[in-house]
């Protein structure tokens, strides 16, 4: 195919940096001696702890029960004893209760295989997904049992294999190595969602994954090769690229009859339904020049980043540790934070790799406007925020900003545009006074859970 699909507006071609890990098969990480499992790893209400200090827990045992429908279950990833319950900042910068578990030895074999899954009823499958605590593994961590139970029927299911962030290669590896499981996961999703069309969107830089999928996905899903362009993996952009339609503002994809889900989520649906294994592990890319053994690892949720970095051997002192990709990932204050369900990568940068930024005045080059995938006016929004004209920013569409960071990336004046927008959103949302020259550094990419 000569003409490849892509989303219509803006976008940038980023240096990919995927060569370091794209050919590294998944490796099971060691079982950590100690894990700290935050009870708020998803969008919604935090889970309620159901264990106490001193309790013995089994691998996969429920330790945090979902609080209402808009929440997700949390399970113990290891066999061990509950040693502490406290508060911790998750990698997304949200304060959350956590349960600390010390490993006591022993592993559970998840070798049950439900071959008769096709006989399950839809609500049984949804119940299994709900019980397994599955959330969207692309980064936003939206509870999956809500997403897969849309209030109105949908016509299209899109499996997101775009993985547009540089460095990250987990989705690529899942599509290459776990393709049979992925197919089962998609079949299960098809059973509960009953879409007319199923697409897998994949960027054209994942050549071997495309080859494998095109061979295996015949009759199950249509493989759509997309242009390598950031942010192709954004939900709205993917819908636009594959179907050519746009999701109206303040609406969700199911309003236009579409559900988008990540390949990692589809894989964990397979694990939940076929193996009855809850979401206690996830695939993570670990990359960075100072990492001795970069690669794709299967790690227990709740493993402390420090332990992971010791296992993969960091050659010099890390200066910046990012959870997620370089465009939307979050730089960590401390490496004593656990990884959570939504963490798709750990990037370790040394001092040399950190790009020094020197802010200049805006020269009105208009590049931010040309790369914005939403079609917003970043430089205008910036100047309105800067002149404290915050209500005007709302009119010109700041709440449509998906915070992809393309404008900040391209800006030759190196103005942290997206930081201004995140701050302005928080200010607008909570109606605090706004000081243009004292812009808070925003570490969170979401703030829906803030108590009011």
């Amino acid at each position: 195919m000569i003409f490849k699909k892509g989303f219509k507006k803006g976008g940038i071609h980023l240096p990919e940096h995927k060569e370091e890990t794209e050919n590294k098969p998944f490796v099971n990480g060691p079982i950590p001696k100690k894990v700290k499992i935050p009870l708020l790893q998803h969008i919604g209400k935090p889970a309620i702890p159901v264990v106490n200090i001193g309790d013995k827990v089994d691998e996969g045992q429920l330790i945090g029960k979902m609080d209402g429908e808009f929440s997700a279950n949390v399970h113990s990833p290891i066999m061990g004893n509950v040693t502490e319950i406290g508060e911790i900042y998750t990698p997304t910068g949200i304060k959350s209760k956590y349960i600390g578990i010390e490993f006591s030895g022993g592993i559970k074999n998840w070798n049950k295989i439900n071959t008769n899954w096709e006989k399950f009823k839809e609500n049984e499958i949804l119940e299994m997904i709900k019980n397994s605590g599955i959330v969207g593994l692309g980064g936003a961590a939206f509870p999956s049992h809500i997403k897969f139970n849309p209030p109105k029927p949908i016509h299209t299911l899109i499996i997101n294999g775009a993985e547009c962030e540089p460095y990250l290669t987990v989705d690529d590896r899942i599509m290459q190595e776990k393709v049979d499981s992925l197919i089962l996961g998609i079949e299960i999703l098809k059973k509960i969602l009953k879409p007319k069309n199923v697409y897998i969107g994949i960027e054209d830089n994942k050549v071997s994954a495309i080859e494998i999928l095109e061979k295996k996905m015949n009759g199950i899903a249509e493989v759509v090769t997309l242009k390598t362009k950031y942010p192709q993996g954004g939900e709205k952009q993917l819908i636009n690229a594959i179907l050519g339609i746009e999701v109206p503002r303040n609406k969700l994809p199911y309003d236009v009859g579409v559900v988008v889900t990540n390949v990692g989520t589809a894989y964990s649906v397979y694990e939940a339904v076929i193996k009855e294994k809850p979401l206690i592990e996830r695939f993570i890319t670990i990359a960075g020049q100072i990492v001795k053994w970069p690669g794709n690892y299967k790690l227990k949720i709740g493993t402390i980043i420090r332990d992971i970095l010791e296992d993969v051997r960091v050659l010099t002192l890390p200066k910046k540790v990012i959870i997620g990709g370089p465009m939307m990932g979050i730089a960590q204050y401390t490496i004593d934070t656990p990884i959570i369900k939504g963490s798709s990568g750990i990037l370790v940068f040394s001092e040399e790799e950190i790009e020094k930024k020197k802010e200049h005045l805006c020269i009105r080059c208009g590049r931010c406007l040309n790369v914005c995938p939403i079609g917003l006016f970043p430089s205008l929004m910036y100047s309105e925020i800067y002149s404290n004209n915050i209500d005007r920013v709302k009119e010109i569409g700041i709440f449509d900003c998906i915070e992809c960071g393309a404008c900040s990336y391209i800006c030759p004046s190196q103005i942290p545009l997206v930081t201004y927008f995140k701050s302005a959103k928080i200010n607008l949302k909570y109606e605090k006074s706004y000081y243009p020259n004292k812009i808070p550094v925003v570490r969170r990419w979401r703030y829906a859970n803030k108590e009011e």
Partner: protein
Amino acid sequence: MQIKKSNIQSKLIVEPAPHINHRDSVPKIMWGVFISLVPSAVWSVYFFGIPALTIILISVITCMITELIFNILKKTPLTIWDGSAAVTGILFAFTLPAYVPLYVPIIGSIFAIAVVKQLFGGLGYNIMNPALAARVFVMFSWPTLLTANKYFLPTTSPESLGINFNIISGATPMHLLKEVVHTGKIDNYYDAWSLILGKTPGAIGEVSVLFLTIGALYLFKKKYITYHIPLSFILTVVILTFIYGLARGISINPEYSLLKNSLLYSYLHIISGGLILGAFFMSTDMVTTPLTKKGELIVGVGLGILTFIIRIFGSYPEGVMFSILLMELVVPLIDRSIKPKIYGWGKYETK
């Protein structure tokens, strides 16, 4: 070396995303523009002699010193090395004749940086191109110094440059083209090769189409400029002058047909005067162009129309400078009215 538990320090740099940046920066872009102007500067020094070099150096240095003084007065971080003042300096020098007294570039440069750029708020806030505004300022301040005869005082014998002076008597190509408007024909004109290489009288930087094009190609390659403004600008001038040539029945070469003569006429309009310099280097100045591509096309067409009107019907032979300044004043209006369509707004909402 393996990092032990004790010595992975937790002193980490925390920054908001994104953690990677595009390699372009303001100084890189500005010095890139400066470098792209060097070939034509070298040619002008070769052609006009040392006076051209003096004027270029003096205006660049004066611009940078003025910038420095304003940095100190305004207590802002030093911006002289970001290259924008140097670009203003060299562009301003490019619009001057090579044989003006040295106080003209000095005062013009001070005006460019102090009044047009810094008093409006510095880089990014100026509403007009400082170099061009300063050019207009010196033009009205010393009208006699900037007339045709200052454009060309041959330091070497004209014959060695391949120009027959008896015929053309030092008039710039634009003056000759202006005569066409009055008489409908042209007796003697520079041959295309000397126009393209730059063996004609004119301002320091505008004479050599060849070297300006080399610089422009460099800018295109670096993606510092886009084709939108230059292309629409030049195309508009070509179309309008071609139509004018047809309507007026211009005969440049009596042996040619009217169609061919009109084509030749618009071709001469492109390679004479400041059109190439203006189209590629001045009208594309990021600060004073619209943000949207559609807006840039509008500006380009507007520039073409204004240039055509001033060149044909105005009292000045050259219209590029005025048309750029006029269109720059319209840019805020264009930016206000032309906005990109936002994802999910408009027709999708009502569905």
